[in-house]
């Protein structure tokens, strides 16, 4: 029974990662989402795993088209996130990331509210470590605030589920609706995780404070589980239309005046969630498909934007738009990839966002929601303004910041693409040899002679200023 549980590979992977190091850890991290996706592929729609526990009928696995789609999405997000974070040597983040992804998969395959609650809380407990991993006073305070909101959401869900079940509805997680006993509590629990207006503070507070890699994982799971849950429990709920419309419109004003670029993306995320919530609220086939498609796309393009900003933070140690600029000169590939994400979130034709966002907007017109349609158009223009233009412009263009004038450094994206072993490029004030020496241990397993030879030529050509008079071990690490 358990062997067909889709969350199992990721959760086992998280345990194995805790006890492995070096190449084994990297292999486990890459293999876990692949094995999980293979498991989802093997699942037949309609499969249900049930058992009785303490007189309760539990359904840990319920497979249908909606859960399969989100299952694939979460494994894809986990795999991309793992590749992005392979350079880390931080078991806490690795374990948290895989367990977090596993919790999300467990939640979308949950067929009853109790199982959903367990994974709902696991999502909170695992994801908070991605914020705490920043290991600063600021991240500790943020993490605690985040945890309070997330656990609070779980408590509301549990209370609602008990009320719902005690009224004779059973624990099955299907259409709930606001009129059901406990429906409002469950709705509120979903609303906190979906960042409804006035319940959204945790998102813009915590996501920009997480580690560069942690934010990429955070972007993919919590809010999307909430969207899945709303689509499952409250499709066609009229109230979701004004709530979603508000979610699309109010964050864009804050995003325009925000200086921290990852916080701009966090506001933009609420804006995108708004489109999904509107789609679920309208509840027609086109709207629901649009909402789910947009959730899928959002994980990809918001993940890409968060990755590009994470790369900027990783290289410069800075995320304030006022202190960045001109980085296209040092990180051209990151700049191009960021603009791909920006075009997609702005619903530029031929990019993914264009299709899914248009589905929701078209559904709004078809159902006669003229004001909602105009608001969604306004919000689309707004997201183009702050995520499409502001993010790439302030980070990569505008004026040349001090980071452009710093000693030459290879673009982060290049290092990632080429499995660059150095853990952290030295900041302008630090010395080269220390960083290089520390990278040597990773080199022993990642370097092949072929790549090293190619890399040596490339480095010599592109960064002639690299120090050569370092210790022999450091030179070996570089392949010099």
């Amino acid at each position: 029974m358990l062997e067909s549980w889709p969350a199992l590979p990721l959760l086992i992977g998280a345990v194995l990662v805790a006890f492995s190091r070096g190449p084994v850890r990297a292999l486990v991290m890459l293999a876990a989402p692949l094995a999980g996706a293979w498991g989802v592929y093997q699942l037949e729609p309609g499969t249900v795993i049930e058992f009785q526990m303490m007189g309760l009928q539990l359904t840990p696995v319920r497979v249908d088209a909606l859960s399969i789609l989100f299952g694939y999405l979460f494994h894809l997000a986990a795999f991309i996130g793992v590749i992005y974070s392979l350079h880390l040597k931080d078991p806490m983040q690795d374990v948290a990331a895989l367990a977090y992804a596993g919790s999300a998969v467990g939640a979308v395959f949950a067929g009853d509210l109790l199982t959903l609650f367990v994974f709902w809380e696991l999502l909170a407990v695992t994801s908070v470590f991605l914020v705490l991993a920043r290991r600063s006073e600021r991240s500790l305070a943020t993490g605690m605030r985040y945890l309070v909101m997330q656990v609070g959401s779980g408590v509301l869900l549990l209370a609602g589920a008990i009320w719902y079940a005690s009224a004779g509805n059973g624990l099955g997680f299907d259409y709930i609706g606001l009129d059901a006993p406990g429906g409002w509590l469950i709705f509120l629990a979903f609303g906190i995780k979906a960042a409804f207006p006035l319940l959204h503070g945790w998102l813009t507070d915590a996501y920009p404070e997480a580690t560069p890699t942690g934010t990429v994982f955070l972007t993919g799971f919590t809010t999307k589980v909430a969207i899945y849950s709303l689509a499952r429990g409250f499709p066609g709920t009229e109230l979701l239309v004004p709530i979603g419309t508000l979610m699309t419109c109010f964050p864009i004003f804050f995003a325009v005046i925000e200086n921290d670029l990852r916080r701009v993306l966090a506001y933009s995320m609420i804006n995108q969630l708004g489109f999904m919530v509107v789609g679920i609220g309208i509840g027609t086939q086109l709207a629901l498909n649009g909402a789910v498609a947009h959730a899928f796309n959002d994980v990809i393009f918001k993940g890409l934007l968060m990755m590009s900003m994470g790369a900027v933070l990783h290289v410069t140690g800075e995320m304030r738009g006022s202190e960045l600029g001109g980085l296209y000169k040092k990180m051209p590939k990151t700049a191009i990839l960021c603009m791909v994400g920006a075009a997609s979130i702005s619903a530029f034709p031929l990019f993914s966002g264009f299709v899914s966002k248009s589905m929701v907007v078209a559904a709004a017109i078809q159902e006669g929601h003229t004001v909602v349609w105009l608001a969604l158009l306004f919000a689309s223009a707004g997201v183009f303004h702050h995520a499409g233009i502001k993010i790439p412009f302030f980070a990569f263009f505008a004026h040349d910041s001090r980071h452009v004038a710093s000693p030459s450094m290879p673009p982060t994206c290049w290092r990632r693409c080429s499995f660059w072993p150095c853990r952290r490029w030295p900041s302008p004030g630090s010395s080269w040899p220390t960083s290089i020496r520390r990278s040597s241990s990773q080199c022993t397993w990642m370097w092949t002679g072929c790549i090293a030879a190619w890399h040596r030529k490339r480095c010599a050509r592109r960064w002639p200023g690299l120090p050569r008079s370092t210790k022999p071990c450091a030179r070996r690490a570089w392949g010099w």
Partner: protein
Amino acid sequence: MSDDKQKTYLFDNPRNVRRVVVALVAACVILAGLDLVVHRHVSHPWEAMFGFYAVYGFVACVLLVLLAKEMRKLLIRKEDYYDEAPPTDNPPSGEDPGA
């Protein structure tokens, strides 16, 4: 290092910036012009108006900035408002702070 200072990048040349601006304006004009030629599958009568999306998008962006500027007066706070350090001065974790 010195190599970087000497190197001229794409947008260091004002002519290239001007070319991008001209290309974008040309794309806008062409797309607006296509409104007259291309058949659009409208679902709402306003969509059939010439240049509706272009004008609406432009007005929306301008309004957004103007309103946000007013909001800034009300909401703006110093970075250390909560007695915390600036947001991104910490070294990214999982990396080597001492590196």
